[in-house]
């Protein structure tokens, strides 16, 4: 057996930064014990003095223009699964070591990849292309390889005896043991795995539990291991959040390149190809732009895909900035299968056809419902509602028709019939009003809602009673 361990030491950062180069200082933060801590940071942030384990506000104080991202565990999970899919190109025996590791059993596929050195080179460049970084180590046991990779010892160790020597020097903190056990080991001065191995086994088991011994044994190959292997999903869809919004289609290419190797690994693992790809660009407050790529024949060649993408993107004009990119293979075909068009699109009729049509005709914002809002200022006491809303209690002192904007009123013949109602509110948003409202009747007998602005003394018409 020979295991290759990949430790993605910066995964929590890369899920945010791999879409594009981020020159600004960037940190990933996580809430723990009521405070927010820095759990990852990029080089620019480090240069400002930010370091791991720092309180988030302190980091903000150090670096101007610091980008702060909340740790996204599900994105990390998704990334790791994507990486596992990609790793399928090397071996079908890929195992996850959450949250940030992959373990590949490679003894059977070395010759296919022209030897270990070549395989490692391929793996490293593949990881880099996707915008990740990993430390890699090989060992006869999966856990041994993993400990080496976590320790940053990028070695390929083939013999168990040598593995034991190297592992013995590693710090105990690398072990996957609960904090209480690690603290206990520190208390007795056991700093390395070797220190642990030198302790009487019975005594260790009594004090620190069998699990510690099991882990050490596993790493050294003194205990058989049973790892579950990764089963790839049936279809492919991967999204990539862009650290900074992208304006041009060309700029998207960089990001797409990050996703293609995963697709390729996926297809290799499935012995399949695609004939159509969808690139979905997500915008803020706007419908997605969907760019479709069609191939003459099913393919899994990342190079070909990239070529076609470049051309297509070159001809595409983006209507808005893109914040997230999704690469989707709606249909995976056996590579040998025919390229016949297997699917036809049918469009579901929208529930509310009239509304849809009106909106298309008049513009999306021209058709809306209304709802009341709790604000004393009449013009802010209602707001557009997207969906149907429960009707609010009508206020009998307010007119049904409120003018879009109060109109100056110089009609001296108005007769004030009731009032004043004094409204003074809204200082907090720059729209402070101080008005005395009256109901007035004009010559034609129409009931108007007028007010006198208490600051300027000017009169305005604000509404008409039905």
């Amino acid at each position, binding site marked *: 057996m020979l295991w290759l361990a990949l430790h993605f030491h910066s995964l929590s950062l890369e899920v945010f930064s791999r879409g594009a180069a981020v020159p600004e200082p960037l940190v990933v933060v996580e809430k723990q014990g009521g405070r927010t801590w820095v759990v990852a940071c990029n080089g620019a942030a480090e240069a400002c003095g930010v370091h791991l384990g720092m309180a*988030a*506000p302190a980091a903000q104080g150090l670096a101007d223009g610091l980008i702060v991202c909340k740790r996204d565990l599900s994105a990390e999970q998704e990334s790791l699964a994507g990486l596992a899919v990609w790793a399928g190109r090397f071996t079908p025996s890929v195992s996850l070591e959450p949250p940030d590791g992959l373990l590949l059993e490679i003894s059977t596929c070395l010759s296919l990849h022209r030897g270990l050195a070549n395989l490692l080179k391929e793996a490293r460049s593949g990881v880099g292309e996707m915008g990740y970084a990993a430390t890699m180590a090989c060992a006869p046991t999966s856990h041994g390889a993993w400990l080496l990779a976590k320790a940053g010892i990028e070695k390929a160790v083939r013999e168990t005896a040598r593995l034991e020597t190297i592992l013995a020097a590693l710090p105990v903190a690398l072990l996957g043991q609960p904090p209480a056990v690690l603290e206990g080991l520190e*208390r007795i*001065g056991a700093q390395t795995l070797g220190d642990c191995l030198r302790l009487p086994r019975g005594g260790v088991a009594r*004090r620190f539990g069998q699990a510690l011994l099991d882990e050490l044994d596993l790493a050294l190959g003194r205990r058989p291991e049973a790892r579950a292997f990764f089963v790839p999903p049936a279809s492919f869809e991967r999204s990539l959040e862009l650290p900074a919004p992208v304006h041009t289609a060309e700029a998207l290419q960089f990001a797409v390149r990050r996703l293609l190797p995963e697709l390729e690994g996926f297809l290799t693992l499935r012995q399949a190809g695609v004939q159509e790809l969808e690139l979905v660009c997500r915008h803020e407050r706007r419908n997605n732009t969907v760019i479709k790529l069609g191939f003459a024949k099913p393919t899994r060649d990342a190079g070909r895909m990239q070529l076609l993408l470049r051309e297509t993107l070159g001809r595409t004009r983006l209507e808005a900035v893109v914040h997230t990119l999704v690469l989707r293979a709606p249909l995976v075909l056996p590579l040998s299968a025919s390229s016949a068009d297997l699917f036809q699109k049918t469009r579901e009729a929208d529930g509310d056809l009239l509304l849809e049509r009106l909106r298309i005709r008049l513009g999306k914002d021209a058709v809306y419902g209304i709802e009341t809002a709790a604000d004393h200022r009449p013009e802010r006491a209602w707001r557009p509602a997207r969906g149907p809303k429960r009707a609010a209690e009508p206020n009998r002192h307010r007119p049904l028709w409120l003018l879009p904007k109060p109109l100056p009123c110089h009609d001296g013949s108005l007769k004030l019939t*009731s009032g004043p*109602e004094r409204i*003074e509110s809204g200082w907090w948003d720059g729209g402070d009003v101080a008005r005395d*409202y009256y109901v007035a009747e004009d010559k034609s007998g129409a009931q108007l809602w007028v007010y006198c602005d208490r600051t300027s003394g000017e009169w305005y018409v604000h509404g008409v009673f039905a």
Partner: protein
Amino acid sequence: MAYAELHCLSNFTFLRGASHAEELVTRAHELGYAALAITDECSLAGIVRAHVAAKEVGLKLIVGSEIRFKDGPRVVLLATNRSGYGKLSSLITRGRRSATKGRYKLELDDLADGLPGCLVLLFADPLPALEHAQAIAARFPGRAWLAVELFRLPDDAERLAAASELAAASGLPLVAAGDVHMHIAERRAMQDTLSAIRHGVPVFDAGDALHPNGERHLRSFSDLAQLYPQALLDETLAIAARCQFSLDELRYEYPEELVPPGETAIGYLRRLTEDGLLRRFPTGTPDKVRAQIEHELALIEELKYEPYFLTVHDIVRFARGRGILCQGRGSAANSSVCYALGITEVNPSCMEMLFERFISRERNEPPDIDVDFEHERREEVIQYLYAKYGRDRAALAATVISYRPKSAMRDVGKALGFDLEQVDQLAKSMAWWDGRKVNPERLAEAGFDPANRKVAMLIRLVDELVGFPRHLSQHVGGFVIARGQLSQLVPIENAAMPERTIIQWDKDDLDALGLLKIDVLALGMLSAIRRALDLVSAKRGQPFAMSDVPSEDPAVYDMIGHADTLGVFQIESRAQMAMLPRMKPRRFYDLVIEVAIVRPGPIQGGMVHPYLRRREQVEPVTYPSEEVRGVLERTLGVPIFQEQVMQLAVVAAGFTPGEADKLRRSMAAWRRKGGLEHFERRLIDGMLERGYQEDFARQIFMQIQGFGEYGFPESHAASFALLVYVSAWLKCHEPAAFACALLNSQPMGFYAPAQIVQDARRHGVEVRPVDVLASEWDCTLEKAEEGTHALRLGLRQVKGLSLEGVACLIATRAQGPIESVEDLARSGIDPRDLKCLAAAGALTRIAGHRRKAYWDVAGIERAMPLAMGHVAEPQPDLFPLTEGQDLVADYASIGLSLGRHPLALLRDRLQRERIVTSEELSGLPHGRLVRAAGLVLNRQRPGTASGVTFLTLEDETGHVNVVVWRDLAERQRRALLGARLLAVYGTLERHGEVAHLIAGHLRDLTPLLGNLVTYSRDFH
């Protein structure tokens, strides 16, 4: 036209009222109102302020309260006379006592007795049920009204009509009222903000929780006339005329049970005094003291203050009986009577104090005696008071907790919709030294643009909100004790602490009404002194009390003169230590001055340097007149005590003693409220008239301003000076006992256990480590060679160790020898406690070094019940910790180390960087450029020192005093506030024995400490 406002909330109706009581009173007076009722919701907490302000401007104030009944309508109750006031106060007490802190619960049935002496206004909005209106009318015959409140809303007319109908149906007459929440309409934004804070939503989401307009202010007559029928306005005057009660009618009645039956109060006091004199002066009372006693007793009898002295005497007697050390201070404390009664220890024959200075005929205010008790045992005294007088007669005074910039920033920030992190940033940007105003620069530093509209709004509102009361908390120890029901005098409510009750008035309120209060305070130093005296007694085999401490010992003054005062009461602070080598105190009165002079008052008033120059005879001692000489002679012509400033106002500016006292009160409050200006004119004119130079007059006024709330009265200083002397004597002659007592009284004082131990060892005390075989819970003294004693660290130093664990350990130790961890474990001590002991290195004698001990202890944890006996297992080879690791473990577990100082371990490295030790520093001349480094012991930025920060660094040879000027502090804020190990490059400044390092550059060396945990005591 005339009007009286009968419904008005001050900001003591928390988060509703948007104006101070004083503002409301002043505005009502300006508008020409016939009267103003302050009717805070179920509270009289703001009424005394309003009363004082109303008296000042000559406005009639009505005492009342708004109440919302759980089961019914909302009313305002107004007191017409003293008994009605008592009823109202009792009702509020009932409501407050039956709910948790800050809430109240009352039902209509609570009005069953009709509250004779009170009037009631039932509010017409929302319209109450007819049955409620009829019930009120029946319970308050001829004393109830239906109050209509109109705010220019569209349905005003309809509401007036509905109210009239109800009035007709129920027989209640109508009256106008204003539901006033603010004194002027411009407070609208503030009022909206308070509503938003109250509802816990941002103001833009508060919607209908906000009032639709700003009409709830004190409105002008013309506004009112437009809204209300004349008859309703006139009715307010009729009601106001019936309210004849004034707070001036409140008379305090002393408890009377202290006098034994058949004796008069003065006779009993005289008897106690004579008994005391026999004890104090077994060989006969000196004539001077005798004369003074007679004078004082005559004055006490004339002013009927006997019960006060008897009350204090009773408390002190109780404490003494329990062996609780206590000492009185305060204006009346330093009288000969108090000395005879055992309330104080300052011998009047050593002091030249005039009792009359502290109790005056003219002032007509109760004497003031504060009694300090050992901080850990004060609760016993409080419980004694509750038991003796009962909870309906004794309660603690309130302390009004007001908005400060930080809390205001937090609440307003949230109300304006800043997000939580921003609010935190904002609040944090307000450092503890930034004072009461928002500093826009600080906001800019924290990344907020002060020019931004929202930020500008925030600053304005925060400035307005600062000083608003937030809630009532308990005073540190001010007790009010009444002859009868206290709730007839002032409402009592629940405090946050269970079983604690407080009255709704604070110290200033009590003062303003001339009500008596006894301060039962906690003082850590008394605990330490008592412990030290006990240790010395045990050591010497005979009782050794405070009175056995020899007075005026030159060795003690020598020690003080070298600023060797770590741990000594008061004079251990950085500023005091800097002063001592210049002051060189040689007698008790010097200590009195020392205590008083290093205070913000004298420092800000610029008294310190003139005094020192005169003391060092660099400057001649002169007086502008004989009268002034009389006042200032004992302090070399420089006013140092609060009383001297008041006396100066009398002798040099022609103030009456009553006026001088008013001046003193204003001095205490001007920082909060301002209002010294008219005294300034009066004082300076008065002094010019009497032929003093304008310069001198201005200087005196400046000194008065500087005194502010910080000036020390001579009597306080004298009581404190006594503790200074006693603690210094103990440090000088019984250093082991003193250090031991300090450690056992932690937390207190300026220094942490690590420094106390360092200091004791520097003075030759042998300190022994925490040891499971020898240590008690407290630190103890153990016999050492040649009749000396060593200090054994106690288990109290061990972090995380439980009290049960210690009890278990000590019980086991009593049963037989402990030879192994297993012996210990058999006692049933919790494995967690064992781990703490191992971490502390306390198991060394039974298990070896920390690692071995931990191995043994961890083996216990998973073992079977201990009856199973010994499990044979091989012992691993565990290496002992290195010196550095041991040090880290020491600090982490017991907060100090008996090993070498951390800096000693780093010295080679520091030396390469040309960093010198504090010892080397003391041999270097003035003006030398030097580098020093040390653990940061404390940071101080006195409000008086215009932005200077003082740091104390500690290295293996002693302390380094560092001065950081403001511009450097701003530039290197991070290193200054964050570093635990700091290097300072700077210039040595030396005046005689006093040396300071003036910082030019700071370097944060904290990373060199690795995992070492150290703490700095920063005074906020």
